[in-house]
């Protein structure tokens, strides 16, 4: 097992190298002037584009530019984010907690609700419960996230004045700034920092701003997990051991929950793991509509503005998250299903 983990971690180096070469190569397909134009916001500044190309060495051969980037990264400098107006590393630690905070609440809900609904649909196959959850899943999955988010925003915030967008209210934000001795930003997540600092009203305020984003995220993402769970349940419920259990007089709850659902969870773990890993990139639509500046917002803006240091760093981060999440899923397999051996 240990050798397997070490081997997979070593493999990470090659993955990161591959990802960096790929992204760097793609970005190099843009002309040096185009990349220099990133520094330009007004027509007035456009006259300086050739000078910027020279200053930042954007016309140098690609391997030299790549080597320069690797050297900087090796020395701990991930570059300057024009979108975030600060170093990439600093910006990362500002945006990542916002995304993590949303996912820490949304992901468990997605998994719990997905498994529950999938089980329900599988057990009650071809009944109104099954049809209802399937239709709900199709609607949730096919509805554009931004549209769904906007509808929720209009109803709750626009009509009832509930669950405002943003990360935290201005009053709370001001209180936090004016009371550095009473409130420490340990994690960058107001929900958790509120608890750690003993100011639960801050946590409450942050949660108030999280209700709609979490609801959107859960409804949109839960559909996939639910369908996988349902398929797994149907497959397991048709197996011989279920018939044997029934013949032995086991009750429906024992068969469905203790036997079938446990076995149906294996493919769900794969999907859930991938979903959780994917959610670390942040949901662009949710973050933009609810004005939460997280990883999705940052990545989307960086992509449209060709903020190279951000694109490189975030893609590498995503690479790490996916390799590690796959590794964790593989290890979990071995524990859940003793038939699987890691080699």
């Amino acid at each position, binding site marked *: 097992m240990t050798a397997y983990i070490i081997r997979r971690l070593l493999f990470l180096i090659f993955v990161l190298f591959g990802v960096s070469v790929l992204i760097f190569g793609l970005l190099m397909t843009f002309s040096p002037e185009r990349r220099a134009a990133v520094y330009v916001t007004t027509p007035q500044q456009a006259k300086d584009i050739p000078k910027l190309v020279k200053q930042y060495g954007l016309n140098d051969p690609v391997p030299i530019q790549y080597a320069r980037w690797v050297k900087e990264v090796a020395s701990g400098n991930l570059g300057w984010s024009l979108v975030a107006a*600060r170093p990439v590393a600093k910006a990362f630690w500002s945006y990542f907690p916002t995304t993590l905070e949303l996912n820490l609440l949304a992901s468990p809900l997605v998994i719990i609700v997905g498994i529950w609904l999938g089980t329900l649909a599988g057990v009650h196959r071809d009944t109104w419960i099954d049809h209802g959850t399937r239709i709900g899943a199709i609607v949730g999955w096919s509805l554009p996230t931004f549209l769904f988010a906007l509808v929720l925003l209009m109803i709750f915030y626009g009509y009832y004045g509930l669950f405002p967008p943003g990360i935290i209210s201005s009053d709370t934000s001001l209180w936090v700034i004016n009371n550095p001795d009473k409130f420490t930003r340990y994690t960058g997540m107001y929900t958790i920092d509120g608890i750690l600092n003993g100011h639960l*009203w801050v946590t409450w305020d942050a949660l108030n701003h999280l209700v709609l984003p979490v609801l959107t995220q859960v409804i949109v993402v839960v559909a996939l997990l639910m369908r996988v769970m349902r398929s797994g349940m149907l497959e397991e419920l048709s197996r011989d051991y279920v018939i044997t259990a029934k013949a032995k007089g086991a009750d429906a709850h024992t068969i469905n929950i203790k036997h079938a659902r446990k076995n149906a969870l294996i493919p769900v773990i794969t999907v859930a793991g991938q979903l959780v890993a994917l959610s670390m990139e942040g949901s662009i639509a949710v973050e933009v509509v609810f004005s939460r500046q997280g990883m999705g917002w940052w990545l989307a803006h960086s992509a449209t503005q*060709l903020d190279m240091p951000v694109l490189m760093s975030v893609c590498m981060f995503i690479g790490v998250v996916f390799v590690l999440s796959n590794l964790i899923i593989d290890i979990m397999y071995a524990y859940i299903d003793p038939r699987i051996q890691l080699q």
Partner: protein
Amino acid sequence: MRKLVMLLLAFSLLLAACGEKPEMKKKAEKTPATETKTAAQVGSNDKFILESYGTLRTLDPACGYDSVSHMRIMNIYEPLIFFDGSATDKFIPVLATEVPSLENGGISDGGKTYTFKIRKGVKFHKGGELTAEDVAYSIKRHMVVDQEGGPMWMMLEALVGVPSTRKDGKIREGVFEKIDKAVEVKGDEVVMHLPKPFPPFLAVLAYSYGGIIMDKEWCVENGCWDGTVENAAKYNNPAFGSEPLHKIENGTAPYYMLKWEPSVEFIFERFDDYWGPKPAIKTGIVRYNQEWSSRKLALQNGDADRVLVDPQYLAEVENMPGVTIHPVPQLSVTGAIFCQKINPEANPNIGSGKLDGKGIPVDFFSDIHVRKAFLHAFDRKTYAKDVWNDQVVMPTSPNAKGLPYYKQVPVYEFDLEKAAEEMKQAFGGQIWEKGFKMVITHNTGNDQREAAAHMLAENIMSLNPKFNIEVRNMDWKDYVVAYRKYQFPMFIIGWGADFPDPDNFMFTFMSSDGVYGKFSAYKNEEVDRLCKEGRFEVDPAKRKDIYERLQDIWYEDAVGCMVYQKVDHFTYRDNVKGFVPHPMLDHEWESLKLLSK
């Protein structure tokens, strides 16, 4: 599973219970024993919230060259003088005690020497006191820094006579000595020496692009230029983000920066030791909110005192109860510029590159009949009505309405018959006979420019079935690169004032050295001569003649098609008072010290 559900339920109940805590918190913190500033104490009448989506690039006054940076900097720092109300040519003293003029002797030596008397008793946010030495240092430091792509070309042009401290990537010899000599301290006065008279100089100083005053001692302590000529080169042209004053400040204005969380919020707090009248607003918050629906709801619910409204959303707030809208015409014009010498290299915008019906030749727009035909095909009235709901100024030349020497010059009225007549005469009738094919490109996301492109294309195509124009869009970053490579037969682009003077517009659009003049390959020796003379002429009567003549030439030569002059709509909750419109200050602008609720 059941345990987990119970746990979640318990947690929810706990949080629900916490929801009742704010009242307790307020009670606890209202006690005089604690000096805590609570959220509850920030009353709504002294707090102002603006929701916008502009990204702040820097707080360094030497490097900020966009309206977002300008707004933050101008609420934190102060210049020597500022615009008087909505005027562009009248000023009020700020850190100077009077505005230099010929009458008070502040302007002397034929407009080449400006003397500023420096105000006493002014404190910086970190405690220092303003001196004449601080003023001289600040002006020099801005020019020494001269970041690539930054705004210092204006101050350098005025005080040193060159647009940059560098040439071909190297420091100009003796440039720092010239900067040093250009500004000197005489007791409580600061004297600035110009190599040539530069009439817009006061307007340049009134903006954040060169006129901001800082504390020398604090600047040096924080890694800025040490004030010596020998070391100046080390502080020249810092990379983006590495400028020492990027995220810190120490101004003299009535507000200091309480917090800047990039792309989330920027908070101003009132400075109690301000030398001037105490402003009504104590806390100013600029919240980043890119999503229009969310901004609109914040305005509607009263969670924001002002939100940024783009033109396409104006109709959604016009009848919103409790909202006041101030339309402010900007010194910012947009025009469709004809390129008279298109680059044929790998250029998809000109088809075959020949006059064969499948493309256009590289000198297509060098024929004045083609240009006039396009001008006759632009329906200004319909455009203003359909695209802007008549909430726009339609300019007749690049000299925007509101600038000195503005003149309503004739326009080529919308007339498709006249357009057809002009086309028949172009290239000896060959264009009419063979037809042509070309592309008009606008920058992605700009609906107003897209509408202008489509209007021109459709009207021209209606003249002759052999005329074929395709409208495409391109990302702004690609757009600015492409027009500078002469790739567009016509580029639709805007220009906002760096300083409120016709030189900033007429030179840009018409001179063969101006940005748009150059890349449209328009060359007229009279125009070049007049642009040069106008820049340095101090006699207002002579300047008037020069700029009026240039506006006439714009019409006579049919240089380009002016599309619109931007009107920004400042949208407030109606309990907010004190807004003063200014054509130089766009919708990112807010002067907190003038507001009250």
